[in-house]
């Protein structure tokens, strides 16, 4: 551990995540990490690598393929004063935990009159690319946003993932911690010492006056790339990362949309009944003047594997930039960013292994 902070230290998302867990485990003996493969040589894409060696098998252990029961175990351990981090290598598997998450974790503090609290973290990863397909790529967080008692956070960068994980572990409520596989290799300046990033505080990542673009999870990255493309069309977009979806900092988004008059929400999920619907509704309910609002997200289909169709399934910097331009200049002819520029702005495709 360093005694000096190097503000320029660059760390990947996955390493920031691992560092946060290690620091929280060192700070609090009640923190433990469990889930299928957390102590495997692959260690959840490396996000739990080294924890077993550092903290031992009582605090870092794999589980049977029993997501439902293991969620209940995390809940019980949390009620008993521990702070479990339950890890899933894909968010899709949370469907096996929904009974415990919705009927027990979310409700226990309330339905037991405050006699217990459930300080647990559920880490889960969204996949994309390399043909991950129907059951390895879903952003299902809106299902959990629906239920009072759960917190839902989806950090988009290495700095936030470290700070949010610390916040999540120290929070006295169940926190659904949504990670995106494509973010794992992205880098940011990350302080070495432990710090927290508060929930309920959106981050304005880029300032602009023409349109407010909100990007959730990995879509924040795509929105930033779209904002770069929009510069060539003379449009300065404000880009906001909600960071946490529950609690949601709707005030910051509303204030920005009020200034720009335009709100484009780009979700890493389907738009129907999703986070984007919630954000748009929240802004419309609060805005003191009319705001033009649009949503983008997954195509309303099951995610296909073939690259041609998978490409069309997701919003990308080009489609986001085109949509924003259309909002800013509704009467002008459609604009397309320079293809070469767009190619450079487009994310590097993940090629596996998954």
């Amino acid at each position, binding site marked *: 551990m360093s005694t000096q902070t190097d503000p320029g230290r660059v760390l990947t998302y996955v390493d920031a995540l691992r560092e946060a867990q290690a620091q929280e485990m060192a700070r609090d003996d009640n923190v433990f990490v469990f889930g299928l493969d957390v102590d495997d040589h692959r260690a959840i894409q490396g996000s739990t690598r080294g924890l077993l060696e550092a903290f031992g098998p009582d605090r870092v252990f794999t589980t049977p393929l029993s997501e439902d029961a293991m969620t209940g175990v995390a809940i019980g351990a949390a009620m008993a004063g521990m702070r479990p981090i339950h890890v899933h290598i894909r968010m899709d598997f949370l469907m096996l935990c929904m009974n*415990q998450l919705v009927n027990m974790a979310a409700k226990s*503090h309330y*339905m037991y*009159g405050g006699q217990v609290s459930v300080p647990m973290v559920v880490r889960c990863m969204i996949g994309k690319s390399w043909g991950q397909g129907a059951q390895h790529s879903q952003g299902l967080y809106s299902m959990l946003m629906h239920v009072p008692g759960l917190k839902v956070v989806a950090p988009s960068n290495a700095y936030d993932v470290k700070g949010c994980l610390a916040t999540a572990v120290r929070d006295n409520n169940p926190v659904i911690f949504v990670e995106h596989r494509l973010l794992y290799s992205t880098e940011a300046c990350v302080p070495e010492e432990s710090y927290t990033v508060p929930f309920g505080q959106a981050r304005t990542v880029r300032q602009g006056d023409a349109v407010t673009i909100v990007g959730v999870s990995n879509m924040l990255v795509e929105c930033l790339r779209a904002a770069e493309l929009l510069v060539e069309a003379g449009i300065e977009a404000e880009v906001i990362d909600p960071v946490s979806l529950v609690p949601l900092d709707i005030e910051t988004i509303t204030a920005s949309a009020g200034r720009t008059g335009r709100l484009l929400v780009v979700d890493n999920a389907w738009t129907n009944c999703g986070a984007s619907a919630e954000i748009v509704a929240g802004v419309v309910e609060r805005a003191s003047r009319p705001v033009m609002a649009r949503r983008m997200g997954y195509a309303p289909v099951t995610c296909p594997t073939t690259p041609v169709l998978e490409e069309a399934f997701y919003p990308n910097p080009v489609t986001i930039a085109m949509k924003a331009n259309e909002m800013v200049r509704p009467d002008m002819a459609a604009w397309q960013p320079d293809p070469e520029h767009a190619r450079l702005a487009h994310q590097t495709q993940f090629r596996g292994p998954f």
Partner: protein
Amino acid sequence: MAIFSNTASNIANRLYRGVRLIRRVEEELARIYPSDRIKSPVHLSIGQESVAVGVCDALLPEDFVSATYRSHAAYIARGGNLRAMFAELFGKAAGNAGGKAGSMHLIDMAHHVLGASAVVGTTIPVALGYALAIRRRGEARVVVAFFGDGATEEGVFHECLNFAALKRLPVLFVCENNQFAIHQPLEKRWATDRLCERVETYGIPAARIADGNTDTIRAKTQEVIGRMRTGAGPAFMECLTYRWREHVGPGEDYDAGYRDRVALEAWQARDEMVRLGEQLNEAVRARVDAEIETRIADAVDFAESSPFPASEELYTNVYAD
């Protein structure tokens, strides 16, 4: 006020006191229910008292129990606060959860009652989580997970058996087999009734107690929990019993056609409340009965005279601070 206070000098006295209190509490609930003052669905344990009482009498004060929506018996047998329970059922602020929980989510952490759930099987893994925490802390206490025969059909039950055995968790699984899941008898739900055999394949010792005898249940619990405290891992008990009343509500439902009175009468003929009562001196029993009536009357009065929660309470305890 625990029901198994030191004034109860012998086991027979304690067991009778437990069964009698649960029976009378629930009869009182059934009596009050039509008045609509109880603001909660109730699942009565009348006829099933001996399981909770036999098991809980073998526990130490620091042990935990978790239960299902038919939880009054375990709650009371564990010494859960009777005033708070009645207040909760009346929807009053002084209830266990300020009136937010009702009958199906009784909790009393002061008496180590871990809570109860309306969704079948959901409390079993939560009980395991407590057991995991106990083991991490090196404590000798144990957790009892009460559930019905229906819960053994849920996948999570099997996931829990496997995990508890794998981790040698100090959990006593107690199946209160009243032979009905809502209105469906075992014959329509189980290919075989060899539940204990199924459990044993996970590496968990299992015992079946068929006659509902409180002393047998107590003795068996003592035996397996004694081993559990020395690190033997989980154990399982299937206790046959019978629900005298309807699935939910205060009445009987023998006219509904899904079961008949013959089975009921067989169980009533060996009513544990009667059998245990007969072991007591008549004067002692009368004193116990009177004490129980006083306690119940006090709890009902308390609940009736307590205020409802303020409307702002709707928004408290959604999130923990």
